[in-house]
């Protein structure tokens, strides 16, 4: 396994494992994360995984940059991909509807097909969680089928409802809380994506696998969803 270590701050080093986004990165990323977490143990302040990198924030009172580098090299020596184990599997219910996912129509027009077909195609794939960022519990997932890829909105919405499910380029995600956002919205989930009372806080963790399951409005409501249309919330 080839990787590069880059200096990013006085107490942070970037481990660069890949140079492109790919689902096949994940078993290596998970294995490297686990190795680094156990190698640094209490000397680790934070480990920030993303698509191709792992940022190691070490405790500068306990470790020098040189020692931290050596520790990374030792931890990643003879790295093997974590085949299969790692991530958990989730089924996330989504109410796909124009009132909460106005870009369903746009996507259908772009693909020259029906809204029902877009829903089917978005929900039939299994997605991987590549990274969490933007907001607590916001999971970047992919890869969305190439034909469904859509650029972010030219003007982001000032207010996107909690639970909104969207697409940006070949990625998909659900907004854990109300926030501004520029993703193409296609539905809404009643699932609580970030919960401070939950062990581990975030429903989704890097490396997890996710399948979206289309549900009717009644089920969405029963599961605690809020069906207020997007415009009415703005």
């Amino acid at each position, binding site marked *: 396994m080839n990787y590069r270590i880059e200096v990013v701050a*006085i107490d*942070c080093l970037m481990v660069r494992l890949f140079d492109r*986004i790919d689902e096949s990165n994940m078993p290596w990323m998970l294995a490297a994360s686990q190795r680094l977490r156990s190698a640094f143990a209490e000397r680790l302040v*934070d480990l*920030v995984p993303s698509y*191709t*990198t792992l940022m190691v924030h070490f405790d500068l009172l306990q470790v020098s940059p040189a020692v931290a580098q050596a520790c990374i090299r030792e931890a990643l020596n003879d790295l093997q991909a974590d085949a299969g184990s790692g991530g958990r599997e989730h089924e996330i219910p989504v109410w796909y509807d124009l009132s909460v996912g106005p870009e369903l129509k746009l996507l259908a027009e772009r693909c020259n097909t029906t809204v029902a077909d877009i829903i089917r195609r978005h929900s039939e794939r299994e997605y991987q969680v590549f990274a*969490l*960022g933007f907001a607590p519990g916001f999971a970047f997932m992919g890869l969305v089928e190439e034909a469904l890829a859509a650029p972010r909105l030219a003007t982001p919405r000032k207010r996107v409802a909690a639970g909104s499910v969207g697409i940006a380029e070949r990625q998909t995600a659900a907004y854990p809380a109300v926030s501004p956002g520029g993703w193409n919205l296609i539905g809404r989930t009643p699932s609580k994506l970030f919960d401070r009372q939950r062990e581990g806080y*975030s429903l989704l963790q890097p490396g997890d696998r996710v399948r979206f399951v289309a549900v009717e409005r009644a089920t969405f409501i029963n599961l605690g969803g809020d069906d207020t249309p997007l415009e009415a919330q703005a």
Partner: protein
Amino acid sequence: MSRLSIEASTPLCLLQDAGRFGVRHLGVTQGGALDWVSMRWANWLLGNGPGAAVVEVTLGGFSLIAEQDCCLALAGADLDARLDGQPLKPWRSFSMNKGQRLRLNAPLHGARAYIAAPGGFKAPQVLGSCASVVREELGGLDGLGSPLAKGQQLEYGGAAPAPKEVPEAFWPDFTDRLPLDLLLGAQIGDFSGMSLFEAFNRDWTLDSRADRMGIRLLGPVLQYQGPAMISEGIPLGAVQVPPDGQPIVLLNDRQTIGGYPRLGALTPLALARMAQMLPGSVVRFRPVVQEIAWLEQRAFLERFVG
């Protein structure tokens, strides 16, 4: 238990500590006092741990009434603090009698003042910290990230030590005269030669577009010539360059990952100073390498303790 009543506050008056750690892989930002050096001094004055909860007052507009006789500490910016109308300079602990009013008005020198109490202010720990992050609804007195508000009460439980001052030799320099140390990042070679020269030899003006996520800088347009980047972890102090070529220094409440190229990252000591500068301040960057900056930080922390 001692109490203080908040008589006036603003959205920029926040309960803070050293920050929230161990949860950044979940997209949770770091948070914490922007000028960590002044926060440390405020706590040092009362014999607190370095990360005990403090009040961060940015630009003023904050007022407290003592519900009991008490002892507090003030460090950081001089926000024209008054104790019952009498000027109170920072870098000291002081006694307040029941019914007395502490008011922080407006910046005379620096931008952010830190008020500490014996043992630290009491607040719920949310994901291991009480640092207030409004955007993430984490921390603060209510645990939901809200700024401090009129009518709320601050509580603390420690015993008041004897009044003390920070020796003047240790007061940080809040002016923009000294350069800010910038650790060179991995994309440094992907900026144009002219941009590299300008980054370290031209003035950068702090824009008014500044908050706890970041401070925009105005100056020559920097040209990044490298490939598009894939989002990756962003360290505290990262100097990122979006497509408009105007750098943004990323602070404690930054997003956890991002995809803009970076010149590098300011050192924690440089960041603490920058957090005290008002819009319009003019700064220069000075390159520094990791080992040297790390040694300097270690030395600073050790001297602090001693």
